[in-house]
């Protein structure tokens, strides 16, 4: 076998392994957030949403308008803002060569501000979740993923 074909073979094997691992993890799993600053600052008010759930432009917009964050003043030191923004942009739905699931129905230019406004989220919740579930006092808000997805903090959104 020539050196060149060896390289091709290795590349093909690597690609196949990536595909297989993607298929194996095809259910609703996301990398849990491990950054301590993100956990501390974002997690003070709401669940620490995984950055893979919105495009890069969304996170930039969110981090640039923290003084009015869904009606709350969530402003932070510029240093913290920069850190959190960078983390989210680097891990956003379209941060990798292959787009994440949350880019379905969205373009690189779109910047929805709520995960609950993405086509992916809407489709996943439309049929399965009855309207009355949202008004349950234990749910309180659509941002409260953990009301139903008990392991959401670990990035596990398998149906509960």
């Amino acid at each position, binding site marked *: 076998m020539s050196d060149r074909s060896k390289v091709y073979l290795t590349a093909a094997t690597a690609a196949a392994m990536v595909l297989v691992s993607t298929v194996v993890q095809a259910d609703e799993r996301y990398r849990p957030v491990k950054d301590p600053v993100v956990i501390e600052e974002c997690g003070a008010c709401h669940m620490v949403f995984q950055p893979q759930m919105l495009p890069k432009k969304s996170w930039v917009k969110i981090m640039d308008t923290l003084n009015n964050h869904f009606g709350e003043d969530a402003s932070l030191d510029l240093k913290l803002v920069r850190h959190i923004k960078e983390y989210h942009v680097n891990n956003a739905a379209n941060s990798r060569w292959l787009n994440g699931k949350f880019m379905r129905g969205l373009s690189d230019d779109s910047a929805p501000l709520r995960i609950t406004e993405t086509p992916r989220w809407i489709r996943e919740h439309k049929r399965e979740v009855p309207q009355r579930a949202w008004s349950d006092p234990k*749910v*309180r808000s659509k941002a409260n993923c*953990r009301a139903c997805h008990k392991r959401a903090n670990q990035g596990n959104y398998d149906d509960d």
Partner: protein
Amino acid sequence: MSTFSTIYGRLLLIAILTTGQMVSLSGLVAAAPLQENIARYAAEEKAGNKGFIAFSAERGRTLFLSRPATGKPDTPSCTSCHTDTPLAVGLTRAGKEIAPMALSMTPDRYGDDKKLEKWFRRNCKSVLGRVCTPLEKGDFLTFMSTQ
């Protein structure tokens, strides 16, 4: 010859000691205990109010339980999120649990002055629609320290 016997070695030693002290000093400033923060607010209040004598836990309680409704419609009072007792676990609008406000329940809550200012800034704006005065902050903390 030991490392610190030369002139450069001594300079290095001084540098190490000074840096160490600066680090521990900044640590102290960042994590001033609750009483130091209350004293700071007292000094601030005194500067603008000659008649100021002391903070009052009772005024703090009244502030905590009041319903000013001059801020955001979703948060007319402190109790909207924190419940009407500082001993209970609260809930944010986004459904995240908030540790009890009472010092006895959450002893590490009021140590960090930066954090303290951050939350007064945010939550006074949410509930009152303005920043809190040093008197309000001091009364509030005094009340929480008795709980």
